[in-house]
């Protein structure tokens, strides 16, 4: 089988994307049930995904289950595959993924949806679930599965939540089906069985007649409950992560030190769908880090979470991990730090003499707007963090902002520039004019996109014209040569918004865009808004309207049958409070805002 790919490899860029064979790869000759984990983006992006590494090891640690990987072929490879009619194969065995029992897609961002269709078709399978027979079952999971509807017709099943335990139940169910009926039997029995597993949504069992909420049939549950891992400290951490030959986006060991976040930023979907916050003990983190380093040879480790410096044992955890320092190149990185003095002190400890850059995310320009989004951060905090960074020796910081947040005015946008100028002014006072001249501030501005299951799911997305206007405003106010301003693609945010809150009516648009050649839409040099607009026209959907659609509080939502654990009433209350500029407390404060997630044994797992 592998020989089929060999003649194509000389004709593509970076053939190393397609060969597998990395350190710690698992190849199983015999396995009762096989799954191909499919990541609908290029190898270097997919291999940086932590969920993939976790599930790969969880499944392959079981004697009778086999897990392999497949990534989206880059357009040059796709062209070769189509020309030679070479099917999409998994890296480990080079076996066509159509011969697997399951294909499991990871949906990390909406702009990979056309790649999903491409991979299904390159596998030689019909795009629509209803047109497929027997095995493999095509299933999806990940954050975008929380509004599965735009992609619902393409998947046999969608998994909602954290898959470490459920994947085993799903594979067991497929094994029973195979043993009893064989690969090519009527799959309805299997789909019914899968729908009885908590967290599994089988779109074919929910009828859609154009409206919402969807109604379940044939015994499928009315709402699908998100799966949550409890006792997170004991949950599996990869011991032998795959070590890619290619330089990947996050090319290092990663230990997830905390899942979930206690802050409750209202634009943030992750802040809701990973609730409640669960921490791992510093000792667990240290031991896992040692194991990974020994088994990979990496000289860098990243302590991942949504807000690393909130971890109650972060100082101890860093101590544990820094002590591993076996080589002069040893490096610890902490992505996603809070914008405060404490975080800079932590950063200083891990950076040592190597102060390359420090990133903060104030998100908005005014205290008012930060109250709206519940960022829990004042201008004073931001100034103090920046001042502390410069006085500690950093010469370059990076600031993340969003434009288009609900209630935003021109004043809020201009305030972004004011804040940056205040930071530079403060640096001049602290360090003197000469030293301050050397400082650089990189400002990255993205457009707010309302996401399902966040308090802002009812809000509207600003139009490309409004985005252009606010960008011009900001550009006019930020003329310092010390500031480097970067925008996030405005047009692709529109498509992202249309998909993020779309329903099943979006399926023909996605299929059409795919047919018109849309691929790798998250890559600015591949994205074409024209393609999507045309696809919309042909499918009878106005993309621009779909993106900026404001949803009324009483409207049924396409994702109402997906129960993320947090109640819709709480989300609605949070949205109301945001418009009133009222902040909501952090779960760590000791008081509870009654979001509803902590029940049935699920609770916050905070170390101290």
């Amino acid at each position, binding site marked *: 089988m592998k020989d089929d790919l*060999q003649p194509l490899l000389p004709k593509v860029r970076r053939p190393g994307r397609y060969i597998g064979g990395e350190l710690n790869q698992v190849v199983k000759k015999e396995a009762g049930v096989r799954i191909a984990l499919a990541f609908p983006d290029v190898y270097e992006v997919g291999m940086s995904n932590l969920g993939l590494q976790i599930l790969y090891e969880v499944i392959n640690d079981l004697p009778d289950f086999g897990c392999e990987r497949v990534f989206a072929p880059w357009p040059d490879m796709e062209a070769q595959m189509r020309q030679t009619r070479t099917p999409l194969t998994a890296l480990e065995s080079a076996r066509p993924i159509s011969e697997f029992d399951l294909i499991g897609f990871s949906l990390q961002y909406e702009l990979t949806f056309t790649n999903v269709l491409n991979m299904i078709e390159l596998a030689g399978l019909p795009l629509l679930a209803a047109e497929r027979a027997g095995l493999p079952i095509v299933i999806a999971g990940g954050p975008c599965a929380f509004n599965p509807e735009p992609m619902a017709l393409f998947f046999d099943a969608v998994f909602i939540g954290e898959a470490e335990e459920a994947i085993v139940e799903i594979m067991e169910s497929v094994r029973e089906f195979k043993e009893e009926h064989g690969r090519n039997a009527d799959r309805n029995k299997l789909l019914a069985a899968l729908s009885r597993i908590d967290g599994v949504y089988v779109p074919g069992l929910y009828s859609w007649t154009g409206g919402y909420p969807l109604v379940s049939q044939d015994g499928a549950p009315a709402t699908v409950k998100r799966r949550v891992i409890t006792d997170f400290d004991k949950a599996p951490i990869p011991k032998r992560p795959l070590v890619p030959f290619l330089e990947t986006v996050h090319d290092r060991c990663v230990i997830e030190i905390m899942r979930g976040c206690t802050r409750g930023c209202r634009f943030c979907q992750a802040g809701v769908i990973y609730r409640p916050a669960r921490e791992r003990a510093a000792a667990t983190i240290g031991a896992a880090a040692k194991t990974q380093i020994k088994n990979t*040879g990496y000289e860098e480790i990243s302590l991942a979470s949504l807000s690393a410096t909130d971890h109650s044992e972060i100082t101890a955890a860093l101590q544990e991990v820094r002590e591993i320092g076996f080589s002069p190149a040893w490096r610890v990185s902490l992505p996603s730090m809070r914008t405060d003095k404490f975080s800079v002190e932590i950063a200083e400890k891990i950076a040592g003499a190597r102060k390359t850059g420090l990133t903060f995310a104030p998100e908005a320009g005014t205290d008012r707007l930060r109250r709206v989004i519940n960022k829990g951060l004042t201008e004073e905090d931001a100034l103090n963090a920046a001042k502390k960074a410069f006085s500690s020796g950093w010469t370059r910081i990076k600031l993340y902002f969003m434009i288009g947040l609900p209630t935003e005015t021109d004043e809020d946008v201009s305030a972004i520039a004011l804040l940056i100028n205040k930071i530079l002014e403060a640096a001049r006072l602290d360090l003197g004019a000469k030293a301050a001249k050397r400082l650089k501030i990189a400002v990255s501005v993205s457009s707010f996109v309302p996401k399902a299951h966040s308090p802002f799911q009812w809000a509207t997305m600003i139009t490309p014209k409004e985005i252009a206007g606010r960008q011009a405003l900001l550009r006019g106010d930020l003329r310092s040569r010390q500031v480097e301003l970067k925008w996030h693609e405005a047009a692709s945010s529109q498509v992202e918004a249309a998909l993020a809150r779309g329903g099943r009516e979006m399926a023909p648009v996605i299929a059409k865009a795919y047919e018109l050649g849309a691929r790798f839409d998250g890559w600015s040099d591949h994205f074409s808004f024209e393609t999507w607009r045309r696809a919309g026209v042909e499918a009878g959907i106005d993309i621009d309207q779909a993106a900026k659609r404001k949803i009324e509080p009483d409207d049924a939502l396409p994702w109402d049958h997906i129960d993320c654990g947090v109640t819709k009433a709480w989300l609605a209350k949070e949205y109301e409070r945001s418009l009133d500029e009222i902040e909501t407390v952090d779960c760590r404060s000791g008081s509870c805002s009654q979001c509803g997630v902590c029940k049935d044994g699920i609770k916050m797992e905070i170390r101290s």
Partner: protein
Amino acid sequence: MADIMKLRLKFAEAGDMRWLSHLEITRAWRRIVSRAGLPVAYSEGFSPHPKIALSPALAVGVGSEAEYADIVLSDHVPAGEALDRVNFCAPMGLRAVAARAMDLRAPTLGSSIKIVDYRLVVARELPEADIATALNSISASLLRVEHGGKRTAVIFRLPVEAKLNTLILSIEESLELQSTLRTIDRVAQWVLVDDSLVDPIDLDRPGMDENGKAQRDINFDGRI
């Protein structure tokens, strides 16, 4: 930590390893050496790098039976032990076949390797006269032709600075191989010592050819 010794490894890039770039192979060795726990020496500065240097870059798509890595260590490790340790930690297809402790001041691989032998295998029979003409046109010297079944293997020699990819294209063109399956492997790299070809792993011994026969004459026809 001081530099104590230079460990020279000879290794093979078999199977799919041929599809990796020089940079990717270098990164792989960095991980292997780290996993193997060898006391590798690092450069100074804010961003220290392990002192690992490979033999001249191999084109993507070309496999090899004779690649070399020089690794500077900050402590003594017997060469044989180092060989076992790296092989225990290397991914399939990257296999060290020999190791030798070198003088720290020994010339680098990049500066000392002058001549490289390749083997082109095509899934077709090729007349020897055509092969000779084709190789002649690119100033490569023919070492050997092996016929077997429907395959022909052509072993030829080039100066290290020759651009292999360009040469392969012109060989393919003159032999009309474009649509034929073919593989290319580097089979040897040579250092010149007193006009003899010596395997870089063997520097203080006379060079051997692929058959293990002592090889004292330059088997190169002087057209460099």
